[in-house]
């Protein structure tokens, strides 16, 4: 009788969980579809020549760097070519143990400068601030190692402009990325942050730090991630943005109002998911104070990043992401169902807890439970087959809808071969890759619970083409 009750309960739990999860994703999909459809006529205006008027707020690009000697010069050259009237680049060398600072000094003609640092956020000691003689809008903060969040805080302390944009040192930005991501600030004075779509750069052609041709990677790990990024950004974030419930702005490219972030205490040092933690904290702080604010997502592909191409690096990245998610949620439980919580507190936060945070436990638990129950004769082969059929069918459906949104709005992968490859990946990723991902996320959860120390995420890179 007990066994039957356990099986009954587990069956019901998994069933209800799957229904809620997929209803949630379906709603996000529809919201994203509506948003993309509504904005489609904006493209017509976008293609017309548009002058800058001087009303665009100046932006500080903050580029934290740790052991980036191989790629930092090419990345900076690409950033220096951005089309925007007024921006500065602040590289924060977080006590790199390689020749990052030396490369920067040599390549950009840096000289030590007696900069007065505004100590508005506490950070590890700054050793010195360097200025480029060849590029007046480039400065480098050399500081003791303190992690990515600490580096961003040090960058904020020397940032001069009302908006800052956190950019990963290995990101490739589209030339008009700042112009696109700043738009929400131009048409809504309540805007405090905006984030752009990050796409996979592996397989693309890059020349002189600029993306010249979009392509798909040959490496299967990277290919799976192309579909994942489409799903995560195009309907995940866009859907949440539509109802003002976006809890994540990618650390690879996000624009924030400097004063609001300083007021919130900056990035939280020693966290892994400092990007998400900051956004959740901003929601919580501004809602507690009753401030009318907006955080918006810009679906245009503005930032391209190199993704891991081997299992080990990918596993480490996913483990870190899950730990980051756990830290961000655990630190702000009070946002959930709070009086002024709105969409972030009443919808996005509970959704994240249920389906992103606890997702791997339920998903893997579901697979294991069904396999064990089937092996021990507790469920029939039909039930087992139907479970797998449904789980995989819904997985394919969600990925395919990401592909549809991409086709409707951006059409970034123009060749027929691209479409065919992506369609195959949409199906294949459900046979092993997703389950492996759930496993890595489960490990991340465990490591978060065990509170092991966090460090900069080292990534094995192949590089993004010639510089």
């Amino acid at each position, binding site marked *: 009788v007990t066994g039957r009750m356990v099986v009954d309960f587990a069956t019901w739990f998994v069933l209800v969980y799957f229904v809620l999860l997929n209803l949630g994703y379906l709603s996000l999909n529809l919201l994203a579809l509506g948003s993309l459809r509504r904005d489609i006529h*904006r493209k017509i205006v976008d293609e017309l020549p548009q002058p800058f008027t001087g009303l665009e707020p100046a932006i500080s690009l903050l580029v934290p760097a740790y052991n980036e000697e191989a790629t930092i010069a090419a990345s900076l050259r690409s950033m220096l070519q951005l089309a925007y009237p007024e921006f500065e680049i602040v590289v924060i060398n977080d006590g790199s143990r390689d020749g990052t600072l030396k490369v920067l000094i040599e390549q950009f003609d840096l000289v030590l400068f007696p900069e007065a640092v505004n100590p508005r956020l506490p950070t590890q000691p700054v050793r010195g601030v360097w200025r480029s003689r060849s590029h007046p809008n480039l400065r480098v903060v050399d500081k003791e190692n303190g992690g990515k969040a600490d580096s961003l805080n040090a960058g904020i302390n020397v940032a001069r402009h009302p908006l800052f944009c956190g950019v990963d040192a290995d990101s490739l930005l589209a030339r008009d990325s700042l112009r696109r991501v700043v738009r929400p600030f131009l048409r809504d004075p309540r805007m405090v942050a905006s984030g752009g779509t990050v796409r996979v750069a592996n397989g693309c052609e890059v020349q002189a730090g600029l993306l010249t041709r979009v392509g798909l990677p040959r490496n299967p790990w990277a290919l799976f991630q192309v579909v994942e990024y489409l799903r995560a950004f195009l309907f995940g974030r866009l859907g949440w943005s539509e109802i003002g419930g976006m809890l994540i702005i990618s650390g690879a490219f996000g624009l924030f109002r400097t004063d609001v972030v300083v007021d919130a205490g900056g990035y939280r040092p020693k966290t892994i998911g400092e990007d998400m933690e900051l956004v959740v904290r901003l929601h919580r702080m501004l809602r507690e104070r009753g401030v009318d604010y907006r955080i918006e997502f810009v679906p245009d592909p503005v930032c391209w990043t190199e993704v891991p191409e081997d299992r080990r690096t990918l596993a480490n990245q996913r483990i870190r992401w899950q730990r980051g998610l756990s830290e961000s949620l655990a630190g702000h439980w009070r946002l959930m169902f709070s009086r002024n919580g709105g969409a972030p507190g009443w919808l996005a936060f509970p959704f994240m807890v249920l389906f992103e945070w606890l997702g791997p436990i339920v998903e893997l638990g579901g697979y294991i439970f069904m396999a064990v129950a089937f092996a021990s004769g507790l469920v029939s082969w039909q039930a087992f087959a139907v479970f797998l059929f*449904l789980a995989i069918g819904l997985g394919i459906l969600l990925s395919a809808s990401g592909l549809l949104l991409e086709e409707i709005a951006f059409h970034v992968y123009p060749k027929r071969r691209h479409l065919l490859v992506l369609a195959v990946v949409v199906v294949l990723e459900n046979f092993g890759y997703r389950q492996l991902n759930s496993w890595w996320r489960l490990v991340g959860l465990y490591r978060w619970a065990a509170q092991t120390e966090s460090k900069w995420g080292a990534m094995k890179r192949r590089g993004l083409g010639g510089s």
Partner: protein
Amino acid sequence: LDFSWLSDPYLVLAAWAGVLSVLLVVLLAVLILSLRSATRRAETRWRAFVDQWRPLLLAAATADETVGESSFPPLRRRDRRHFLRLWLYLHESLRGDAAQRLNEAAIAVQAPHWATRLLERGSDTDRVLAALALGRLQWLPAWPQLLQATRSRDALLSVNAARALVQLDPLEGARQLLPLLLGRTDWDVSRVGDFLAGARHAFWLLLAKILPEAPPAHAARGLQLARALRLELPDSALRPMLAPTQPAAVICAALPLVARRDMAPAITPLLEHRAWRVREAAAAAMARIVMADELPLLERRLEDDRFEVRLAAARGLASLPFMDDARLRALQVSSSAGGPVLQQVIAERAQP
């Protein structure tokens, strides 16, 4: 537990849900393929249109004489959107006679008439294109339709309709639109600044008149636009904006517009304002008009609690033509809080 394939309703439901998801995947695949095919067809049509019409429009733009209907082949109804798209692209890059010739080309294909109809009844894309084109064409008969479009909830359409009205008649456009220009915060402020450049004087007149009575949010936006347009507002409009009782956002927007020496008495109390942003902007404004005997006012701000104010004061001092390095260094030695910022600005001055 033995599930029976046909008798267990939940299992049957789950199986049907699985079937439905597969059917939806197939549907999505069909949608994606048809979308791709439609996009390809549209691209081919667009390219063919550009191949045919671009040389014609460029020839018209560079023609010495007025272009007439005979210069162009008949424009098919389905190509109207393409025409507006190409015509606008060329028009946005041209000025003077070339732009005038392009207008003649558009009139030759009856564009003002069908663009007005598109503005009233077209799709979202058509309406935006039509508003842009009617403004470029300076087609006055479309005024009522454009005015109606400025009230649309679609920010992109309404802001471009406003732009068109200002192109049609700068003074009347600015007059009728002023409440919207200052009140519709969903209008891209950079775009508004861009088209108001064509109506600087009209906007100056209207802003100077309404500013003292405007609600704070409208006043702040008006001042922001005035700054972008480099307008010099009369004392009677600017001085009330600098009253310490005004909200900090209004004062901060007004201070960058201060350019005359006689405003110094209005700025002096703002150097002690409780909001640091006001003190920062006041220090920068004061530095533009300060006389040698008022330097202590700025020097006192070197001891301000806020770093930003200290830096603005130091930058202001360093920008003064009568302030040499020796005096700045002396200040650096004597100032306790302002030392580091003075050291920075001295180094900045030394840089080529």
